[in-house]
């Protein structure tokens, strides 16, 4: 087993060696501009891009013509929301999203609010789930877009997108989903899910960084977008800019591998995740799972270790790469807004770790992680005045804590 161990697959994934091999010729040999229409260099590049477009479309049950390549999911989210907002401004100015969305959605919506749009941020329940009925009630005559993520990047919770999408379509509103964490890891079909716009990222599914896609429905309904980048009119005029041919080729290959291997991979990763979860919970008292216990990504485990601060825990398990919801790991000094939205107390948000398991994790790594986490939590609890007080029977809520 090699150290350090990578267990942060929600942040990014390594490029699969098969993907890398597929990309290799497109840097130095087949280097043409896919928009060059009058020589073989361009034709070959275009052919490769169109093959990749088909591979990505197949993974999500779409038509290749409905795939717009972008620089990544942040751009896809921006294009979906700003593109709809501008294109449909005559029809209305209201957008519905949720408090636990990724910042690429939330910050884009905040920008639109400054421009006069109205945004409804739906709450989630204690498991992180949105009630589709609340979506129905939030839709008004002015609503032009509903944007709800498929799977959350912190807690892995999977939203009832098909149900929400059905309600949204009945009302003639466009449905967008940020499916960055879901596509390639869960079965995904744009028609079964009733979605019109879907953001996808290559580097979350063993493809390269710097490339993503936006699915834009062409029929029933036909969705139109105002571009946010102007230029040569590439990608049906929705996203100008010379195509990142090697990146797109890699994205296509990654999509193909995901489609073919998904069945086996989901089972394997879920088993490893459950082994990690059960191993930790059997050895350590006072741990709490954040987010819905079952309706979550197979590789996700978000867990709080009471009376231990997350960043110090990260230090204690130094050779295992994971993330924490602790404020101390962010620049803002605020603990995770996602955990807060679930009603997780701030002290438990500070104590949370996010494990993201993926394609290349092994049983041995999981076993090592269980031992290492147990050791670090025990050590830090011996060091924790809160743990000591709780052992003495003191109710921490009875203490007047200072502020700083």
């Amino acid at each position, binding site marked *: 087993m090699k150290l350090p161990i990578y267990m942060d697959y929600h942040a990014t994934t390594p490029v699969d060696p098969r993907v890398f091999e597929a990309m290799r010729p497109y840097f130095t040999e087949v280097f043409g501009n896919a928009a060059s229409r009058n020589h073989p260099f361009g034709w070959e590049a275009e052919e490769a891009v169109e093959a990749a477009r088909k591979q990505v479309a197949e993974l999500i049950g779409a038509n290749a013509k409905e795939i717009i390549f972008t620089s990544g999911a942040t751009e896809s989210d921006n294009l979906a929301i700003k593109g709809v907002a501008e294109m449909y401004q005559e029809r209305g100015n209201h957008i519905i999203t949720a408090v636990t969305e990724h910042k690429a959605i939330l910050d884009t919506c905040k920008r639109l609010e400054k421009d006069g749009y109205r945004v409804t941020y739906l709450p989630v329940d204690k498991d992180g789930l949105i009630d589709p009925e609340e979506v129905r009630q939030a839709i008004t005559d002015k609503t032009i877009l509903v944007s709800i993520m498929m799977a959350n990047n912190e807690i892995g919770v999977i939203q009832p997108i098909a149900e929400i999408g059905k309600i949204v379509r009945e009302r003639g509103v466009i449905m967008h989903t940020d499916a960055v964490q879901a596509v390639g890891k869960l079965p995904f079909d744009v028609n079964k899910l009733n979605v019109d716009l879907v953001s996808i990222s290559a580097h979350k599914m063993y493809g390269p960084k710097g490339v993503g896609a936006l699915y834009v429905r062409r029929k029933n309904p036909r969705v139109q977008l105002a571009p946010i980048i102007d230029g040569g009119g590439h990608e049906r005029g929705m996203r100008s800019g010379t195509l990142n041919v090697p990146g797109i080729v890699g994205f296509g290959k990654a999509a193909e591998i995901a489609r073919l291997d998904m069945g086996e991979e989901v089972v394997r990763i879920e088993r490893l995740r459950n082994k990690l979860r059960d191993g930790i919970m059997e050895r350590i008292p006072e741990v709490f799972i954040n987010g819905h216990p079952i309706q979550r990504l197979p590789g996700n485990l978000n867990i709080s270790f009471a*009376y*231990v*601060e997350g*960043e*110090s825990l990260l*230090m204690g398990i130094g050779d295992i790469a994971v993330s924490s919801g*602790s*404020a*101390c790991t962010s*620049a803002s*000094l605020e*603990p995770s807004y996602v955990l807060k939205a679930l009603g997780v*107390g*701030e*002290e438990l948000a*500070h104590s949370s770790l996010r494990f993201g398991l993926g394609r290349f994790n092994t049983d041995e790594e999981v076993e090592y992680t269980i031992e290492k986490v147990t050791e670090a939590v025990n050590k830090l609890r*011996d*060091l*924790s*005045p*809160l*743990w*000591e007080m709780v052992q003495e029977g003191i109710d*921490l809520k009875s*203490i007047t*804590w*200072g*502020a*700083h």
Partner: protein
Amino acid sequence: MAYSDKVIDHYSNPRNVGSLDKNSPEVGTGLVGAPECGDVMKLQLKINKEGVIEDAKFKTFGCGSAIASSSLATEWVKGKTIDEAMGIKNTDIVRELNLPPIKIHCSVLAEDAIKSAIADYQKKQNVPASEEVLASQQA
């Protein structure tokens, strides 16, 4: 973010972890911070009749820098008089541990813990708190 070697050293081998008898008249206890802010320090000082700090123990819930700041504080106060200990400034801790700006609050908390433990001891001894203690309590 990368930690300084000194922070890692204190985190890996924290000095003077533990508890003293909080009911003893010779022991002053400082409990500062708040769980929802992500750091709580408990610092205890055993002070003799001459006003010299004979022993110091701590427990900290917080990030590596908070643990290191309190560990360092216990090392520094041992053998010092109350007045000398009152002279320890958070900026000294920042310098010694090479704390980045975002971690300065950890050093402030350690300084507060020293002052708060001394105030608790003085209260037990019915000694009027020194001016600096009063000032820090009002802050």
